[in-house]
């Protein structure tokens, strides 16, 4: 503004820095600058592609524009987060029964991710086994606590949650090892990128001719699938491929924790048959295939020993969350197939404390993990995240 005023013949060099004339121009310049930034957002907000990539000054996603574009252009709304929940089986080796427990009074922890869970029903008890030394099994419903409301509260089959509410003689059984018990799946709110993919996939559903993107759109849109049954966990990822030798289209589906269950596949199959499968096409909806990736890493951080506990748990959560976003079949990088690259795992861990983590040393994996068609990565329960504090020099 000062330059323009000068070009118009005003003697701006004579204006004092704190004088009225310059102060007004300086103030207005800041207003114009802010307006310019807003116009930039207006331009970016016009495209789903750029709206999906918007972040604030701290690097956090801006969802406002993407929500608008998705809703107004594609008719899609963002899928909300849902906490992990499920049934835990307790073995009580004593004759003493425990409970019933008021809601939220019985607590568990995932030893790998440090996520915590609380009971959700007030009527359940952990029964004893009077007159016998054989442990008695009881089931109690749990959900992840609010701090772990998304995929960071997920616990896969084989995970043995530990009691943080002391109950003598009581242990939990690993998930998936008893009838009624299975992995607990939490789902994050749909990311901008996932929403963009669903927007693009929706285009395929305009046609009645069985475009592959239509199949993926139907499977990953809960509002459509819900009309055909209640899935145990929202389908967040899908990949279709034609089996050349049979002509059968196979649709692999997964939730944020890993492969969807067979009953969930049945529900999605019904939705696909109703909405997306044309005459002559044979579609088979199947669970994606698990590829366990054991991440054994030593994390070197600068700072105090107090950082250890926090980084340990959040690092495994960060990797778990990253795995929950990897498309079925993987991402394309250095391999000829899909993959999960080591650098992307490192980026997930680094994001936990970028200012403090100085080095990562992996015992496993040693490089990119190849994913074939239909495969999704799952964090192996044997993973270890060891934090080593390096004092400030």
């Amino acid at each position: 503004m000062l330059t323009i005023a000068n070009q118009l013949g005003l003697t701006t060099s004579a204006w004092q820095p704190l004088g009225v004339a310059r102060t007004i121009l300086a103030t207005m310049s800041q207003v114009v600058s802010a307006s310019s930034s807003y116009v930039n957002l207006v331009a970016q907000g016009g495209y789903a592609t750029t709206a999906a990539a918007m972040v604030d000054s701290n690097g956090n996603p801006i969802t406002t524009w993407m929500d608008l574009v998705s809703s107004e252009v594609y008719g899609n709304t963002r899928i909300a987060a849902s906490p992990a929940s499920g049934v835990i089986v307790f073995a009580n080796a004593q004759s003493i029964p425990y409970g019933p427990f008021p809601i939220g009074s019985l607590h568990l922890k995932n030893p790998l991710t440090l996520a915590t869970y609380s009971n959700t029903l007030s009527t359940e008890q952990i029964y004893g086994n009077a007159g016998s030394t054989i442990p008695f099994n009881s089931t109690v419903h749990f959900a992840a606590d609010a701090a772990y409301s998304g995929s960071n509260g997920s616990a896969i089959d084989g995970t043995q949650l530990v009691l943080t509410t002391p109950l003598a003689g009581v242990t939990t059984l690993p998930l998936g090892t008893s009838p009624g018990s299975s992995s607990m799946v939490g789902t994050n709110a749909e990311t901008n990128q996932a929403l963009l993919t669903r927007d693009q996939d929706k285009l395929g559903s305009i046609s009645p001719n069985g475009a592959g993107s239509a199949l993926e759109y139907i499977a990953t849109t809960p509002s459509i699938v819900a009309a055909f049954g209640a899935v145990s966990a929202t389908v967040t990822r899908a990949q279709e491929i034609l089996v050349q030798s049979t002509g059968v289209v196979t649709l692999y589906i997964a939730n944020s924790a890993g492969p969807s269950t067979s009953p969930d596949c049945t529900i999605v199959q019904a939705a696909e048959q109703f909405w997306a499968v044309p005459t002559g096409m044979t579609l088979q909806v199947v669970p994606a295939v698990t590829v366990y990736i054991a991440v054994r890493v030593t994390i070197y951080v600068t700072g105090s020993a107090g950082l250890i506990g926090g980084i340990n748990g959040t690092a495994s959560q960060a990797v778990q969350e990253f795995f929950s976003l990897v498309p079925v079949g993987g991402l394309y990088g250095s391999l000829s197939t899909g993959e999960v690259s080591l650098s992307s795992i490192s980026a997930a861990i680094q994001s936990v404390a970028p200012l403090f983590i100085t080095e990562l040393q992996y015992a496993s994996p040693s490089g990119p993990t190849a994913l074939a068609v239909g495969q999704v990565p799952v964090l192996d329960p044997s993973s270890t995240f060891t934090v080593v504090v390096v004092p400030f020099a």
Partner: protein
Amino acid sequence: MSQTPSSTTFRDMVAAISPTWLNGWVGVRYMYSMAIQFDAIGDAAAYAVRARFPDLAPTDAFPYIANDRQIDQGFQESQTSFATRLTQWLDRWAHAGSPFGLLMAVRGYVSPDNCLVATVNNGGVFDFYPVGVVASPTTPPDHLPVQTPNPWIWDSLSWPHLYSSAWWRVWLIIWPSASTWTKTAHTYNDGVSFYGSGPSFTYDWSGTLAMAQNLQALVKKWKSAGTWIPWIIVSFDELAFLPSGGDAYPAGLYGTWTKVVPNGLTNRPLYAYARYQNAAYLDGVS
């Protein structure tokens, strides 16, 4: 009754609404210096809104619109042609999964080359855009009915012998003009035609590995999920592969690259090219 001053720019507006003491020699210039910034912001806002509309957008906005609308620009396509196709996105997507949708997309990729493009299925049914006919949602490809006998028997006499069972197969054939792609003299493993470390499907034509991969991605996007495209055939002979007959009919022998021919001199088999040589056979998608 007072009347609000009418103006088309902030510069005019400032002059119109400023009191007399601010409209002197200094005041006018001072206010102008600020108002012109708001005019610039206003213009920028207008351009920001227009930038989402293909017909009004600057060309550097096209990649974003293209990704939003899942319409891919051809490697030699003009911006005007691409803008037109971008505005047709919903009408084009309405045909996804059909020969119509696939052939429109392929024509877009080779635009402005309005060359002959066709799909032919395992039963020998052709859909095609003739040379010069502009592909658009209002102009479907020509469709030939079933021909008897089937002129397109790919592998009834050669491995893998899928002709009698794999009815879900469809071949895409492109007859590019010389300005688009040409036949190259390179052959497999001659040290020239093997581009990078990717699949060895770029010899025999002047296209690049990226073009082949883009074509594959395009076909994957626009074909029906239930269709297997075993090969994308780029024919450099305008008389080859035609539904009306001519050169290069598979005759059941195209399953493998070679075929055995009679050897009049010895009992040893003599191998010859099974497939018509004046064409490139790019890996398809399933």
